[in-house]
């Protein structure tokens, strides 16, 4: 193997910066939970953040935590749980070893995001290596900050193409003292959709609302123990029929752990190497049409976050996915795809994005956003 393409493994941010300066084409990776093994692009050098894995600062009374980009979510969750706190955006793939850097770069929030917001609502500050090999900072370490351009938001969903994240500061919240999940079988797609819309309009402050097609809703309540039974009773009344299951404590934790690993979408013995795991942003008014358009296709999917997202395991090609999405005007990110996370279809030209990108990375060290611009990028040497 050409040693230029051996994975770089910096131990410090300064070392990462030096590697960026010395490398003409590279891409950052975390724990590659979103990257099927053996599918790295052959024309660029991987830069792994695995050794930048520590929590740097955590003060529970400040509601903030700062960690290096390679820090596993499981480490963050453990530290936070010890102080009755959690990551409110409920990131997936914790058990697989996902890192906070990879989660930010992929822009993934889980079902819990409906209560307080997604990852973009909790990222306060970053340090990253830009395309010139400079370590730069955006945002800060406090929950309120209006100084400078909002680089922390920019890098959410940036797929490693706008810099190598080295450090991330997040806002965190207290986790609910008690959570209970109710499962409702609604009788059919239409009924499930109607029940979902009704719950969205209601006074309930839900911790999760998932739709497992065709007709099963999972509704999670979180809050003080004293109020839980009264809320459950009220929920049953609102939905209009009895739940077919109630999950508490360990069962509740296991259920959401399974969903966080996309266990409901993947084959138990491992997906085929070319299975795409896909996130599709939705709006609730289009959710039912989306369900109908995917039913019968070679895919397993779930409607998540109160009808604002679909998670899919897609067993055909990206081109066929793009074609299927086109009818409803949808776009997606394949966050687990051979060759790395990618947008499906590839993004249209966007002068705002291109000007930002070229300012951050004038020598095109990081991967481009669309294949048509690859030909404009310098060849590796």
């Amino acid at each position, binding site marked *: 193997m050409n040693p230029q393409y051996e994975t770089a493994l910096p131990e410090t941010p300064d070392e990462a910066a030096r590697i960026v300066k010395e490398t003409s084409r590279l891409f950052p990776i975390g724990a590659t939970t979103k990257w099927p093994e053996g599918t790295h692009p052959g024309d660029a050098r991987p830069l792994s953040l695995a050794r930048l894995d520590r929590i740097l600062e955590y*003060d529970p*009374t400040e*509601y*903030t935590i700062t960690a290096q980009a390679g820090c596993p979510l499981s480490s963050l969750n453990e530290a936070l749980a010890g102080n009755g706190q959690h990551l409110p955006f409920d990131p997936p793939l914790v058990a697989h070893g996902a890192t906070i850097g990879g989660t930010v770069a992929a*822009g993934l929030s889980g079902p819990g995001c409906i209560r*307080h917001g997604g990852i*973009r*609502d909790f990222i306060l500050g970053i340090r990253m290596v830009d395309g010139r090999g*400079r*370590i*730069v*900072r955006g945002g*800060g*370490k*406090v*929950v*309120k*900050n*209006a*100084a*400078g*351009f*909002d680089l922390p*938001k*920019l*890098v*959410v*969903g*940036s*797929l490693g*193409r706008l810099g190598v994240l080295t450090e991330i500061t997040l806002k965190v919240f*207290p986790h609910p003292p008690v959570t209970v999940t109710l499962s409702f079988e609604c009788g059919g797609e239409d009924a499930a959709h109607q029940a979902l*819309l009704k719950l*969205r*309009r209601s006074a*309930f*402050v839900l911790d999760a609302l998932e739709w497992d097609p065709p007709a099963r809703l999972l509704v999670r309540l979180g*809050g003080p123990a004293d109020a839980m039974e009264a*809320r459950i009773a*009220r929920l049953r009344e609102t939905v209009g029929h009895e739940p077919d299951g109630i999950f508490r404590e360990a069962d509740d934790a296991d259920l959401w752990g399974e969903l966080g690993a996309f266990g409901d979408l993947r084959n138990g013995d491992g997906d085929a190497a070319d299975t795409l795991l896909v*996130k599709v*942003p939705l*709006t*609730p*008014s289009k959710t039912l049409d989306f369900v109908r358009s995917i039913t019968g296709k070679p895919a397993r999917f779930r409607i998540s976050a109160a009808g*604002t*997202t679909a998670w899919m395991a897609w067993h055909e090609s990206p081109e066929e996915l793009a074609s299927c999405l086109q009818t409803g005007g949808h776009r*997606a*990110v394949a966050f687990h795809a051979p060759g790395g996370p990618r*947008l499906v279809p590839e*993004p249209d030209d*966007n*002068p*705002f*994005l291109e*000007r*930002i990108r*070229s*300012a*951050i990375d004038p020598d095109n060290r990081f991967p481009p956003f669309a294949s048509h611009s690859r030909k404009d990028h310098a060849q590796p040497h």
Partner: protein
Amino acid sequence: MEPFLQKLAAVFPPDRLYTDDVRLAAYESDGLTAFRAKPRAVVVPVDEAEVIAAVRICREHNLPFVARGSGTSLSGGALPVEEGIVIALNRLNRILRVDPVDQIAVVEPAVINAHVSAAARAHGLYYAPDPSSQTVCTIGGNVAFNSGGAHCLKYGMTANHLLGARVLLPSGEIVELGGSSMQGIGPDLVGFFAGHEGLFGIGLEFTLRLMPLPETCQTILAAYDSLEAAGNAVSAVVSSGVLPAAMEIMDRLAIDAAEAAVDAGYPRDAAAVLIVEVDGEREAVDAEFAAIVEKLSETGAVETRIARDAADRMRIWRGRKSAFSAVGRLSPDFLVQDGVVPRGRLGEALEKIGRMSRRSGLRVANVFHAGDGNLHPLILFDGAEDGALERAEGLAEEILALCIEMEGSVTGEHGIGMEKRAFMARMFSADDLALFGEIRRSIDPGEIANRGKVLPAGEAPSLQQVGLHPLEKAGVIERE
């Protein structure tokens, strides 16, 4: 007539193209009344096409432009650039669509903040970001500055409720950022656009997130005999594990001002009052509020009042919301600051500010969002007194330096604007600022969009006048 004026006159009729001193005067300043600058012209477009035409003319002639909503910026964000023009967006004020199923509102830039919630209310929804100037300030300005409000700890800022934007770049091109979904794909460009302070162009249309109105809200006011005790009470609330919707503190001077202005009925001998609010589902709020009340009962409050109904709640908030404009009654002039310190160091920060105040001989009234460490020290002085303005500015600088030293921020929500450019170099490294500049010039090579703001360069115009914004004097708006 100069070429650019001829071009503008071809687009804008005389009653919407101002070049005379009389009509220009209204645009010379914004909420930071210390600065004034007269532009060469003001245009008042009635639709998107005219905004685009104006920016394209500016680009062609390398003419700086400043987009303006209601001009309530507290950092000089809407301050004109003397060699350029102002694009007054007030006629683009339509709410285009409210969708109760998707829970979004699509609005033009000059829609007034409070009007969004008013339009959404019929559907049981509201727009959460609530700066205290919300009856006057516009969404476009809110987006440009990522405006906050009293509920930021729990509900976030404007950016957290902005899903999509149709943007006119300084190049004259139009881009669509984000969309209608709470989820995004690719880099969060609409999030990056929020807080750009006008440097990335003009937002022509925004898709805003609406939320169901909370079923109920419980509010408590607790009075303390020291600011330190109030600060400790905040820590107690935080330790309860409940996430309040709002936590606000006012000190004695701010209380006195509020009493004089609106007769809020706060305990007169309190050194500080703390307001805590919890909202959500009825059963959950009852349990959470009870937990907070219990925690607060152990914090040595000299008095606590629980709002019994909506009227009580309004009364508790009225004092807090009037505090800034009320301070104008205590002093002929004042400077308002907008620093952030880590919440746990609020007590320490306030104690240091108190010492700085005594050293300078100037009184400082403190009002702040205790939940997120965002301070608003109001430095009181009399401009007629020799050297008082300089001393006030010096004290302001000391306070901001303290915020930086504590690893906070020089601005929680008002933005850098014109006022705090010099502090950017203290908060950010040379490399950080270099990248900001490179991004800015990549998007706007001619630096025509809000030239001279945010990024340090050149001399700031001298302070000329300080005090209440004319709308505050008239009691129309209250600032935070």
